[in-house]
């Protein structure tokens, strides 16, 4: 019995290793195609990786680049936005996303953020949600360790341990806050990107209803609600409406 479990464990480990190797191989192959400017080939391979159920910031970034190169700005923005979730701090990504947005027709005027909000955003975007969450758990671990030690050494009055625990708890809170913020922003609400040249925004989830306005390829919006094949969207400036799901991609 023990033997079988052991074998299964080894087998599954091997399989995961094989998949990882396979994905790495595909990624390298795709990068080669990109280098040789076979952007469509590269896109095919990058998307194969996605179909395998694997993702990474680099993958999304490279895929966005490939779409940018074949002038599909909507898709480029979509994948840059996806990359942004995984590597918010990447400077190359920030540059390319900005460049792609120059090619987007819609220029939504958003009031400039105040200094405090900017700092807050910058802080939250120091790391991705995964890094923040691991940081949080590490600080919690430290606090727990200090607690554990203090219990064992209760006899000795160790004041510095208490201070240490306090620091660990504060740090856990500091890293827990961006984790929750990002969870709220990235995992509970989703964003969308227009993929068609021009998309009509309707007053109701019905193409016979009143057309409110148009948005163009590459415009990013927040998805508020989903009704069948329709997204209820909100633009950065607060305008709302319904668009057909087929014309958009979900970040």
């Amino acid at each position, binding site marked *: 019995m023990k033997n079988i479990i052991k074998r299964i464990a080894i087998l599954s480990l091997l399989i995961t290793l094989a998949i990882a190797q396979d994905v790495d191989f595909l990624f390298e192959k795709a990068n080669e195609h990109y280098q040789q400017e076979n952007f469509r080939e590269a896109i095919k391979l990058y998307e194969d990786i996605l179909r395998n159920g694997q*993702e990474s910031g680099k993958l999304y970034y490279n895929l966005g680049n490939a779409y940018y190169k074949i002038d599909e700005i909507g898709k480029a923005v979509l994948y840059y936005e996806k990359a942004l979730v995984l590597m918010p701090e990447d400077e190359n990504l920030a540059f390319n996303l900005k460049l792609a947005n*120059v090619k987007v027709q819609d220029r939504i005027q958003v009031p400039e953020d105040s200094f405090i909000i900017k700092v807050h955003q910058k802080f939250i975007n120091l790391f991705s949600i995964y890094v923040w*969450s691991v940081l949080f758990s590490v600080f919690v671990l430290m606090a727990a360790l200090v607690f554990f030690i203090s219990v064992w050494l209760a006899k000795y009055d160790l004041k510095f341990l208490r201070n240490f625990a306090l620091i660990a708890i504060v740090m856990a809170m500091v890293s827990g806050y961006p984790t929750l913020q990002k969870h709220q922003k990235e995992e509970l609400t989703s964003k969308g990107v227009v993929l068609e040249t021009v998309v009509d925004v309707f007053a109701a989830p019905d193409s016979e209803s009143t057309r409110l*306005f148009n948005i163009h390829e590459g415009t990013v919006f927040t998805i508020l609600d989903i009704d069948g094949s329709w997204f209820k969207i909100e633009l950065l400036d607060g305008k709302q409406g319904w668009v057909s799901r087929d014309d958009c991609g979900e970040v």
Partner: protein
Amino acid sequence: MNKKLRIQFLLAVFLMTTLGFADDITINATVNSTNITLNDILSYTVEIDGTNKIKHLPEPQGSNFLIVNGPFQSSNFQFINGKMSAKISYTWQLQPQAEGELIINGFSVQYEKKKYSADRIVVKVEKARYSSGSQNNSGKQNQSDQAENSTEGRIFIDAIPSKKSVYLGEQVIVEYKLIYNMQITNYGTEKLPEAKGFWVEELDEIKNPQSSKIVIDGNEYYAATIKRIALFPTQSGTLTLDPMITQCEVVLPKARRRSSSPFDSFFDDSFFGNSVFDRTAVKRVVSSPLSIDVKPLPAYQDPSVLPPVMENVQVSGNIDTTEILRDKALTLKYYVTGYGNINAVDFPKPELPDYVEVFPPKVNKVNEKKMKIKGSATYEYVIIPHQAGTLTIPPVDFTYYDPQKNKYQTLRSKKFDVMVKEDKNLVSYSTGLSKEEVRMLDQDIRYILKGRVQWRRIDTHFYQNNSFILINIISFLLVAVALVVKTHQKTIGSNPVLTRKSKALKKAQERLGKAMEQESGHSPEILDSVLKGFISDRLNLPEAGLSPLNIREVLSRKKVDENLVHDTFIFLENMELYKYSPGATGNLNEQVLADTCKNLLARLSKVI
């Protein structure tokens, strides 16, 4: 009074001057046709415009004609907006005498000391189409008709095509003329001609056929067009149009009435021409078949297109607005008119940029069926430009074959420019680029990222991350263990029995350690109390009054190993002994005693 007179005077002057102006006249001589046959009777009309005072004109002079009738006079006089117009016309009917040219000389008239003249007219006269002997165009008349020939009454139908040789698809009009010299009271088409290889379209019905006089071999006949059809050949070669059959109700000539009634001559008045006393008969009249040569069209440069055959084509187009908001609909119309079959027309689609949405056109094709089939087609496109700026709708070329000119013709519609503007009411996000963005335009994106990649499963939340889960489990365990320990310590602290028990060994060892440091002489006492204290602490017994016997009893009850019980008993007995007889301690090694006590403590701590 004076004033009134003056006004009247002025009015009179005014009237006289206007009348005076009207005195300038024109003379115009016309004929109804310049190309006739010997059968026809020519109408010659002289029209004088400007006056109706010329009461007499000279009879027409010339060659090769006889005046059979006239002059018929008609005059016209009217005031329009204070202007007088007067007109008078004289009409003569002339019969040609021979093939060749019929010439009517010009003439001049004197009117109010001025001379006005009319031009000479030449009319071409062709040989007779009909003769009384053989009917060249209607040779297949039936027997009854032939029989009628001998008498005065005669009736036949002539089918006259507008052309005998046409192109494939070109329109031919066939006119059916009823020619008769008897009274017809009624007629009806029994059967339209069969036309294999043609597409036949009947033209508008002739409700009141106008009859005109013609002459066949000196005899007067009447000719009336009773039907017109339009034919469009659909195949080339020599095609035959079958005869048309008509039934006519005719009044039989009087010569056949065997009556000697004196009233005959009275009833033979034209007033009673169609009276109940007339005998009528129904006659079946059959036209002769027609053959028409159909030539194929010359090859067109693009064999995939088959341009329609049309004449007098006009192409036009319009748009309903030249300024429009983006995403709003605009109507673009193209019209094609011309003689021919409009159903064969396929107007090309305008070539518009990709950002313009074009709906399939609403096409309306109408064939007007008057003297000739004249078709008109309307193509109505609804287009929606999705981009602001100037939208140019390029001209559209329409090609057709003109049989008159014997070549393909191309007409071009107008080019339209439409200003497409942004709708200010709609959200307009395209506000142009900032300076920084313009600078960015000519930059390229940064290169792809390579190297080691940390792969993740798609669509997992942060709390599904392995390291996150692992670290948190460790933290949880640590806290849990610490908490358990802490609660344990707390329970010990709150229960004196347990505290005494847990601290017994420590207390005993501490006392033992202290005793060893002290000077000798007291050690048996201390060792005794250390061991007794430890046992009483562990077993929760009162320390005072404990004898070695008691201890042995209690330990035995706790089922402690008998050797240990015995050793403890002996040790305690000895200590008691040394305690009360200190002299015996002289030969005792205190160090050995202490070690024995330590040994016992260790052994006992394991079992109680």
